[in-house]
């Protein structure tokens, strides 16, 4: 084996072992890297007790109620639902039927009091006319 080939083999071997180590580490970290948990996971008892955490899901259609500066809405993953109360300014993209991530605490009655509300954007970019056309089409099929 030429020294040049030997060096290349050592480098390749090093890279493979780093990749392997990283994969194992990331696997172990999996649940800790997640930014939020879903309402179903909360229902399954995965929410940390007495600690602030984040829930992510869709803002349920027609669930938003404003009362002065306090907004109440329901966050859902279409299986389970969690009512949320939040006092403060909502981000521009926050809308019913769209994704959101809320940070706060769950009380005994099951109400989630949020200290921060973030809007989660999807990967779709389209002009308003196209959006309008899609909405019309969806109304047509749902009838």
């Amino acid at each position: 084996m030429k020294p040049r080939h030997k060096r290349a083999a050592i480098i390749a071997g090093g890279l493979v072992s780093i990749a392997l180590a990283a994969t194992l580490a990331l696997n172990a970290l999996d649940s800790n890297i997640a930014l939020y948990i879903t309402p179903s996971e909360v229902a399954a008892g995965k929410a940390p007790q007495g600690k602030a955490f984040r829930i992510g899901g869709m803002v349920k259609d027609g669930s938003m109620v404003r009362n002065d500066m306090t907004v109440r809405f329901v966050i859902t993953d279409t299986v389970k639902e969690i009512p949320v109360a939040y006092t403060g300014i909502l981000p521009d993209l926050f809308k019913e039927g769209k994704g959101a991530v809320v940070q706060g605490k769950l009380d005994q009655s099951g109400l989630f009091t949020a200290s921060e509300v973030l809007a989660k954007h999807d990967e779709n970019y389209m002009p308003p006319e196209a959006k309008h056309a899609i909405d019309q089409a969806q109304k047509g099929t749902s009838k």
Partner: protein
Amino acid sequence: MKPHPEKSLSENSAPRFSGRLFHYSSPQTFYPLAGKMIPFFWVAAALFGIAGLWIGFFVAPTDAQQGEAYRIIFVHVPASWMSMFIYLVMAAWAGIGLALGTRLSGMMAQALAPTGALMAALSLATGSLWGRPMWGTWWIWDARLTSELILFFLYVGFIALQAAIDDPRRADKAGAILALVGVVNVPIIYFSVIWWNTLHQGSSVSLTRSPSMAQTMLLGMLLMALCFWMYAIAMALMRVRAIILERERHTEWVRAEINLEKSNALE
């Protein structure tokens, strides 16, 4: 008149392809070649940039949900792509240098690092500006944002490590190891939005399915991506020329080159 050292070398070069490749892998022959290529890449960057910004600001429609703020993607997405791609290229050059001991490879890696760092910084800054009105926060420690920040630190670390070691050969070796170890971060950035729950949205453009984006928006973004490519190549070539001159300053051909530049400047 003394014969130009570069000329005599190129006349002797082997006509085979691998011969050519190794011929241009010498700093002395690559220096003038890079010099010839730079203006082409600058012109291409300017043309793509003008076309991309024109479409981005005047032709592409307003987004249905985000309004005008979405236009940050014309800078943000190409910068993010480049920050990852430049890292891969840089690590590849560093790895080649480490395995084969070719001098130019280390110089190429060193030349790419500042442009990559700039792209990562630009990606983080533009993302932050967009995140405040859209998400409601400047920064969040989600997997995508955190791994991109780590990429920026890897670039800065690479630059600092190379600068800290005086002997260029040892500096190249140390930098190469850091660059190669850091490669593991690039797939993490790319797939973070698939592997974990993140606030950052998934990819709108991918190789495996059609883009979820209006045609003109996509066109503007791709033109800007090409502009960033051309800019990155032009900058890397300019920087590698400076590095070649600095590292080879004791050689005969660099002295001749500098004297030639000086006499040209006087005319």
